[in-house]
């Protein structure tokens, strides 16, 4: 073996080992949750109310609550985020203003989620007077994912070949027509992917909902957007740290984690599937 081949070999082997270790750790985490959680999963667990100090029964209110929060935050963040992304990529020319907004968006994406939680409490819960409610929590989570959605939209639009834009404009299409009929259909699969990935994030966040919507224990389903709800990540936190009987509620915690992971996994699968399916339709 020459020196060159040897260093190739060493580099390649160490990359392989490192990747395997990382993947291995992931599998251990997943396996741990699945083994501990799967035994708790039952029809009753999915559809029942928590009982006996959350050591028995189910987690339906938390599932429904997380569902409401996902839906609510997306109804708010998706249109706003996609429209901002379109505006920034298609209408703002590349000047200091655009770069400034880009910079701020990136920073916003890095702000710890607890800060969003505090802000949401100050603005939605107190100032706007929504109280602890689905709407306040949804808006807070929406704000949190907004930078992600804006960035995804921008990236998706950037990857659309400029020759399609010029081709459309040269045929007398207006800018808006060009965006609607040519640019967006091409970018859409990637935008959708971003949306769904951010749903994964929303469903797992605890800090932003802590002061804005999450209920410690609320064994009934919400009736309006001004109601409080339980949510999976917070429920998990409660079960793991401050239940009335922590030893007894431990299995419930693993079950909750299991459900949460399944939701995130399903979302990612859906994102992949949609990207492929929609991508095919566009290429046709």
């Amino acid at each position, binding site marked *: 073996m020459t020196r060159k081949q040897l260093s190739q070999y060493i580099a390649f082997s160490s990359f392989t080992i490192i990747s395997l270790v990382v993947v291995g750790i992931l599998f251990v985490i997943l396996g741990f949750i699945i083994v501990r959680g799967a035994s708790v999963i039952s029809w009753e667990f999915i559809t029942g109310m928590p009982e006996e100090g959350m050591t028995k029964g189910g987690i339906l209110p938390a599932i429904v609550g997380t569902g409401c929060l996902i839906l609510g935050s997306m109804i708010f963040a998706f249109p706003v985020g996609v429209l901002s992304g379109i505006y920034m990529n298609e209408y703002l020319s590349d000047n200091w203003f655009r770069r400034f907004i880009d910079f701020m968006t990136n920073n916003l994406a890095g702000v710890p989620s607890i800060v969003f939680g505090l802000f949401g409490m100050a603005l939605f819960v107190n100032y706007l007077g929504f109280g602890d409610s689905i709407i306040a929590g949804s808006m807070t989570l929406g704000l949190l994912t907004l930078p992600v959605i804006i960035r995804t939209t921008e990236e998706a639009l950037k990857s659309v070949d400029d020759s399609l834009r010029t081709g459309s404009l040269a*045929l*007398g299409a207006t800018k808006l027509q060009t965006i609607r009929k040519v640019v967006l259909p091409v970018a859409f699969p990637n935008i959708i992917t971003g949306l769904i990935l951010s749903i994964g994030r929303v469903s797992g966040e605890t800090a932003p909902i802590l002061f804005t919507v999450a209920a410690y224990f609320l064994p009934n389903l919400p009736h309006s957007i001004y109601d409080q709800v339980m949510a999976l990540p917070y429920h998990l936190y409660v079960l793991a740290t401050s239940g009335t009987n922590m030893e007894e509620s431990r299995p419930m915690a693993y079950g909750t984690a299991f459900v949460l992971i399944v939701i995130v996994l399903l979302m990612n699968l859906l994102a992949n599937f949609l990207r492929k399916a929609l991508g095919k339709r566009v290429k046709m």
Partner: protein
Amino acid sequence: MIQAEAKNVNFYYGDFHALKDISMTFEPSSVTALIGPSGCGKSTFLRLFNRMNELIGNTRLEGLVTVDGKNIYDKDVQVDEIRKRIGMVFQKPNPFPKSIFENVAYGLRVNGINKKSILDEVVESSLKKAALWEEVKDNLKKSAMALSGGQQQRLCIARALAVEPHLLLMDEPASALDPISTAKVEDLIFELKKQYTIIIVTHNLQQAGRISDYTGFFYLGSLIEHDKTQKMFLNPADERTQSYITGRFG
């Protein structure tokens, strides 16, 4: 009669003086080839006629550009209206990722024409004019992306023809194509000039000789010579034209 004209045109990209005092006229139903070494301003000049240079920031135009006697840079002129009347074909085929039918119908649809019978008719006649009909008539619903490069380029020509342009601008429309597709596009241009005024940028001097009635030679942002193609190739007035045509630089 004059179909299109540039009068004392100067064009700047920022501080860079890209077109220097160019005056040039184009007769109806003629093909004019623009030739010259890379970077001499042919594409910039071509894009003046459908105001595509405006998509680039920080540019400045002086002088007059008219189509059908109307200054297309007048304040009261809507840019998308202008572009509807002036077709453009690009160097790289750029079909939309839509069906063949929708590609050709696009220019009509953005004009608010959505009636099936009209679209059917225009799509067919445009594809016929672009010599593509026979190859695609049985699967108009197929994606345009599935066509070959040469077919895509003819589709782009059909797309441009569908809106009945008065003037057809072509920027090296055959440079990305194989010889057989190139020959097809050249035949097509020859056919089209019966109905359309065509300005075509090309690096291929044989091509310019074969298809054009007039040739303009650009050099470093100036129009050095503009005359009947035969005259330009056989007996150019300017020494620089002579050198370029005989291949001494470029």
